[in-house]
């Protein structure tokens, strides 16, 4: 097709909806012929910076890649580090880790749904979802002391024990969320406008989804039951009863429904955790013995970093970890040369893997479908750029 007939349309880099990226669309009328995402506007060189930081300093650093989903990023990194160190966290700490990871998954999915709603003109969904994140952010704050950047999971355990009467407040928040999901369903999820905007739009079929390697809810909405929590279960996932939410349609609406299904599963998982969390220590004995006053530590139920952590030296070697973060499979790869800094640190985030979906899901769609598809992918630019 000659240049006169097509139009190159530049969208962004200033917030084409959420976050900083540029989209270059080749248009024939209002039909998209070619679509090329252009990223890097929020690249912070996390991998390079990590080479200059001690292992413990990298915990807050990896959280900055994805502020809506810090617990899972924190967990993925610490699992890789623990494999290098050859240490395991005690069972109670494993429960607390997954408790926080699932609380985080709920408020991260709400974040994505709110933005998605806003992108297709439902301000109500934005306000509701962001309002309903609060009880969960509040729970996370009770547990960790921070609203978003928890740095809660440390090598060998977690920083704090479960606060008193956390359980009751958590159960209240979970029942509240269950009621709210019914409201969402009525007002947004099966609203005729939402259905018209999302059904059959931005379809990624099963074969393409595997071929282009999308991850997380976007993959499961295309009919592939791949969830790291089942495929390579870590921490206490083998002890929890939950289902992998899968849909076959592969369209923008299916991706929304998978996220809602996952919120329901997370609610059930948190109930199970609160019901059967065992007593015990929250830090591995190997490190606990190094905490200055063991008795004071046990009364306070929180960990002051043992001095050893600042000079943590894993033995020479390599370790990989993968976890199911809210947006999909998160991969960490650490190379240690036996010093206090990693020789090489590699993160592949789910948003970076999902970037390729823009190139495929939007072909042949209308210009006006871009926000509907963009929002459905729950793409978070800082997480992709790292």
């Amino acid at each position, binding site marked *: 097709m000659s240049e006169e007939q097509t139009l190159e349309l530049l969208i962004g880099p200033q917030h084409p909806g959420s976050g900083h990226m540029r989209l270059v669309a080749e248009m024939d009328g209002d039909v998209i012929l070619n679509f090329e995402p*252009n990223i890097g506007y929020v690249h912070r060189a996390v991998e*390079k910076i990590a080479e200059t930081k001690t292992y413990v300093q990298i915990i807050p650093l990896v959280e900055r890649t994805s502020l809506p989903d810090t617990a899972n990023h924190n967990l993925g990194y610490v699992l890789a580090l623990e494999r290098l160190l050859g240490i395991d966290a005690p069972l109670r700490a494993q429960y607390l880790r997954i408790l926080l990871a699932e609380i985080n998954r709920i408020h991260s999915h709400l974040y994505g749904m709110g933005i998605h709603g806003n992108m297709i003109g439902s301000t109500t969904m934005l306000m509701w979802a962001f309002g309903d994140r609060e009880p969960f952010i509040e729970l996370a704050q009770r547990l960790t002391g921070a609203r978003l950047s928890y740095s809660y999971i440390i090598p060998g355990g977690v920083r704090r024990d479960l606060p008193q009467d956390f359980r009751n407040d958590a159960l209240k928040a979970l029942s509240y969320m269950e009621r709210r999901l019914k409201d969402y369903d009525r007002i947004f999820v099966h609203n005729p406008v939402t259905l018209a905007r999302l059904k059959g739009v931005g379809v990624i079929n099963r074969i393409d989804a595997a071929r282009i*390697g999308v991850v997380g809810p976007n993959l499961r909405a295309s009919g*592939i039951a791949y969830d790291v929590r089942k495929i390579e279960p870590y921490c206490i996932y083998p002890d929890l009863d939950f289902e992998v939410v899968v849909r076959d349609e592969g369209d923008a609406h299916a991706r929304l429904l998978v996220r809602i299904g996952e919120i329901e599963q997370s609610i059930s998982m948190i109930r199970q955790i609160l019901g059967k969390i065992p007593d015990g220590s929250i830090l591995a004995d190997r490190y606990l013995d190094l905490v200055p006053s063991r008795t004071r530590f046990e009364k306070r139920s929180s960990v002051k970093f043992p001095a050893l952590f600042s000079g943590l030296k894993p033995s020479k070697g390599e370790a*990989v970890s993968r976890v199911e973060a809210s947006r999909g499979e998160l991969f960490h*790869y650490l190379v240690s040369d036996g010093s206090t800094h990693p020789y090489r640190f590699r993160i592949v985030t789910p948003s970076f893997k999902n970037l390729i979906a823009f190139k495929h899901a939007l072909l042949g769609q209308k210009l006006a479908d871009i926000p509907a598809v963009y929002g459905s992918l729950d793409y978070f630019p800082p997480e992709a750029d790292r």
Partner: protein
Amino acid sequence: MTRVLLTKQNGLSITVDASKILETAHLLKNLKFDHVISVTATDYPEENRIDVIYHVSSFEDLELAKTILEIRTTVSRQEPNIHTLVAVWPSIEFLERETTDLMGINFGGREAMARLLLPEDFEGEPPLRKSYTIRTEGIDA
């Protein structure tokens, strides 16, 4: 294929010559390793080499998905050339482009692509190489 190793975490690691990478990828694709999780390049300036490490797995075969397969290969720092795998695994597209930007690896056999993460007019040492020095601001400058 020069070496096959079982890694500590029940993963499998294959070391191949850089010239054999395309062949190896085809072989693994036929064994249902259908997507690439990660491409990592690690710079070893003293030994004048860059290791290129691919981590691949499967979505179609969920038994196979339990394994992360590692493919290791080495290129020289002066001529960091290796064949692209984008025709075998389309999921590698942005991973290769990122590695070109940040580590200066040339993935031959594919059309030249615009920069992905770095500014389009970026020139000089690829920033993830060990020889790239970070300019400091403030009192050190």
